[in-house]
């Protein structure tokens, strides 16, 4: 228990002191995970909307694949992405293994199914006649999709939080595709693993506290947007 208080104190000290290494790791973590989340939103929300609003053969299969993907283990993603990105592997020419880009890709693969799946659910919980009503008021197809997404904004923000939460907290994929290289690909989770294996529990706890704080800050921001002007 002492260790936890000690770690929290250290976390505060490291940040207040402006420890460049820790702050660099924290900023990288935030940058990588936010980028991956935003990419997954750019792909996942349109894809989810498409799957929710259209009926075509094979749709059920795709939705099942997406739902399975929502529980994709990060290490599995990490392993496959690593093998794909190996310099002698199929995508080796991109030369992005052990870079933040590789982590963003892996985290995107983890977050995208979460965002797609929750977007499908968010749109399907809307009254199906709402689509007709919006069209009947003179909306183009794009205007209708935009309005439906806006109507589903509360569950969509939950989707964003779930996607972000999934990627910022994962360690397996970041470790494998990033390599946990200081100043390049070391993020808070991999740094925590490293410090734990070094036995530096106080630093590990400090990193964990910092990670929790970042997740909290981002979710607080999203929650404030989500719950704004909802008096009931």
């Amino acid at each position, binding site marked *: 228990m002492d260790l936890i208080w000690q770690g929290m104190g250290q976390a505060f000290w490291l940040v207040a002191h402006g420890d460049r290494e820790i702050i660099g790791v924290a900023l990288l973590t935030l940058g990588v995970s936010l980028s991956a989340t935003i990419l997954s939103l750019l792909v996942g929300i349109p894809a989810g909307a498409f799957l929710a609003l259209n009926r075509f053969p094979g749709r059920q299969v795709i939705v099942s694949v997406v739902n399975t993907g929502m529980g994709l283990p990060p290490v599995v993603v990490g392993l496959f992405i690593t093998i794909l990105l190996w310099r002698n592997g199929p995508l080796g020419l991109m030369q992005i293994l052990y870079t*933040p880009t590789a982590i963003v890709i892996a985290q995107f693969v983890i977050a995208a199914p979460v965002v797609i799946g929750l977007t499908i659910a968010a749109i399907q919980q809307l009254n199906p006649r709402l689509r007709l009503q919006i069209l009947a008021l003179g909306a183009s197809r794009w205007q209708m999709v935009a309005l439906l997404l806006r109507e589903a904004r509360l569950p969509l923000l939950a989707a964003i939080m779930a996607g972000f939460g999934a990627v910022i907290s994962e360690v397996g994929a970041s470790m494998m595709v990033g390599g946990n290289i200081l100043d390049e690909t070391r993020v808070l989770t991999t740094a925590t693993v490293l410090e734990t294996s070094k036995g530096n529990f106080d630093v590990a706890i400090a990193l964990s506290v910092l990670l929790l704080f970042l997740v909290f800050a981002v979710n607080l921001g999203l929650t404030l947007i989500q719950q704004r002007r909802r008096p009931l």
Partner: protein
Amino acid sequence: MFRNFIAAILLVLTLATPLLGCSSPAAPTATPSQKAPSSATSQPATPAANAKPANPQLILATTTSTQDSGLLDVLVPMFEKQTGYDVKTIAVGTGQALAMGERAEADVLLVHAPDSEKKFMQAGHGAERKLVMHNDFIIVGPPADPAKIKGVKTADEALKKIVAAKALFVSRGDNSGTEQLEKKLWKQTGLDPKGQDWYKQTGQGMGATLNVASDKNGYTISDRATYLATKKNHSLDILVEADKALLNIYHVITVNPQKSPKINVAGAKAFEEFMVAPDTQAVVGKFGADKFGQPLFFADAGKQDN
């Protein structure tokens, strides 16, 4: 409100863009542990290669023990500064480090499992293999020492006593260099601990394994560096040391360039030369002395290898 929603998305986007910019490889920052040894050493006279090498990307696959001890946090920035290479240090188990070399996914290896390394060289996966340094393994256990192994001269005898006492033994079980040495020692005793009640595998790194052993009052084999570096977290004593069988010998291996055109031959060669260079060896030989009262490694470059 719709516009607000879009605005929120845009805000997140703009927030993330500069952060991404930061995420591109930055210049190595100073770490606390880095300053101490470099001040204790004369700065290498090698002229800093300001001109970047043609292919600056160098992948070093190494063991977690070198990273956990903090030695690489000193040596890698030194090497990068001297040569201009950009080293990607991938710290994994020795098994995975050798496998990465075999698949030409690493350019140079720093590993400590001599038997596997010899097989690796015989199979033609490596180009050159040079002795760098050693530290030693120690058998550690609870101060109460239920198997009475304190002061025993050889690891062989100590393990036999642990078996006889059915005292708890904690193994890493992660195919690391440390575990490979442990396996070799068990083989010499002619005993097979696998599946015994008193034999536990953690599947984790050295630091974590030491903690498990400490927690459960068990014995384990550790490298001295990690043991010393993590002393504050556990209550294990050194019970057996200085047996020749317990030496932990590190070699640097350059991966055979014929395996793939992507191998950074020049970089690997430069790293190999750097590791055995006198200045580097001086740093290695003093590393950790200020912090633990004794150095963690013994510089061995150029010595007779067996």
